């Protein structure tokens, strides 16, 4: 009988990971495309415009899943970093590294779509609202993590500093979110920017949840593809170093 940790270690073996992920990528990609197509059809054609927001409500179907994933990806990164730090599983490190740019992209998408929605709704591209500010800072944390990764050439040497940074960020994100909330309610009444629209109707909940599932699947596929590329990149690096040594 294998214990749970032994089973986990079996997947930490890069060769097994490559074999398993190679079989998974194509079917998951097809599934992602199908769910996204259905979700987008509902979001763009089959759902009614909002009675307050009009057609701009459709931005929300992209915005909300992106914002959700920006936090979800960071959690994945933090868990992977913790595993990399404690158990030294190489695949966990690869996972954290591969997830960071995807998370940064979702955070950026959430900021941009929010800004595009804010212009017609609030009359301004940007407000220093609590949520916007904390998402912006989350984006900075992603960029800092990627910058740290980029400056250390040896991927194995980068594992621990990057993991420590991701974990410190994970502790800090709630603190930052809370402090920004406090700051914002101090300076401007939150009621101005709170949209007290109707509670979400089912005609809007369907595309929203479908797209949330689609975005998550998309993240998983992208993560697998990027992890495979990173494993291959490390193999190439190890091989060329060995050849250089003669």
């Amino acid at each position, binding site marked *: 009988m294998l214990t749970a940790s032994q089973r986990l270690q079996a997947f930490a073996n890069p060769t097994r990971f490559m074999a398993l992920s190679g079989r998974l990528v194509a079917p998951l990609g097809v599934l992602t495309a199908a769910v996204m197509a259905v979700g987008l059809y509902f979001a763009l054609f089959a759902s009614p415009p909002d009675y307050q927001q009009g057609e701009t409500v459709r931005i929300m179907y992209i915005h909300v899943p992106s914002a959700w994933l920006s936090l979800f990806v960071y959690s994945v990164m933090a868990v992977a970093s913790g595993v990399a730090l404690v158990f030294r599983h190489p695949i966990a490190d690869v996972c954290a590294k591969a997830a960071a740019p995807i998370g940064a992209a979702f955070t950026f998408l959430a900021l941009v779509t929010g800004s595009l929605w804010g212009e017609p709704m609030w009359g301004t591209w940007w407000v220093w609202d609590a949520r916007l500010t904390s998402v912006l800072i989350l984006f900075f944390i992603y960029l800092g993590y990627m910058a740290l990764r980029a*400056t250390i050439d040896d991927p194995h040497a980068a594992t621990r500093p990057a993991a*420590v940074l991701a974990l*410190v*960020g994970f502790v*800090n994100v709630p603190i930052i979110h809370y402090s920004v909330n406090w700051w914002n309610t*101090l300076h401007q009444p939150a009621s101005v920017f709170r949209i007290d629209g109707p509670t979400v109707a089912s005609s809007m909940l369907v595309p929203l949840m479908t797209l949330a599932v689609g975005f998550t699947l998309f993240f998983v596929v992208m993560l697998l593809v990027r992890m495979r590329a990173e494993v291959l990149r490390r193999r190439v690096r190890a091989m060329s170093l060995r050849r250089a040594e003669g």
Partner: protein
Amino acid sequence: MGRAIAALIARDLRLAVRAGGGGGMAVFFFLITVSVVAVGVGPNLSLLAQIAPGILWVALLLSSLLTLERLFQADLEDGTLDLLAMGPLPLEAIAAAKAFSHWLTTGLPLLVAAPLLGLLLNLPVNVFPPLILSMAIGTPALSFLGAIGAALTVGVRRGGLLASLLVVPFYVPVLIFGVGAADEAISGAPPGVMLQALSLLGAVTLASLVIGPVAAAAGLRAALK
């Protein structure tokens, strides 16, 4: 162990005093930044009085970033850090001692200089006590959180800039609660609200006193291998 920590702190202080460059430069940078912002914003005294706490806090934050690079890098380059790591102290205690001496040589001088700069910015008299109090409570957090960034980038080329980029997002709560306490005094809010900001700031500092040394030690361990 207590003696070893005291010896390490005393060594860092002696280095700061005799080798120069650390705290003095930070204070000079603080002065220059505040002056440049005042020149950029314009000589409108009532406007300056209103934004003075924010300017002072931001300038303080930037000045303390300036000296982060030196926190561990010199010791790693000349081998001191290897000797320290082999000594009786755990790396966590070393990181804490070095962060504390960073506060003594950077945070404390900046704190002393702040009232003078407040005068330049036409800061109202009644705002001085809460602002200085918030800086006294908040500046240790800048040193201890900064130690994380300094430790993570210790072996990296041009690590100073990278350390600043990594650390600034974590400084946001300190900045918010620090400026918040002074802003409450400006807007004439009851002291209770101000105390709330100060105690939240204290909570952030206490958390950083724990997280900082542990994370910095993990970063140093990676660099020493």
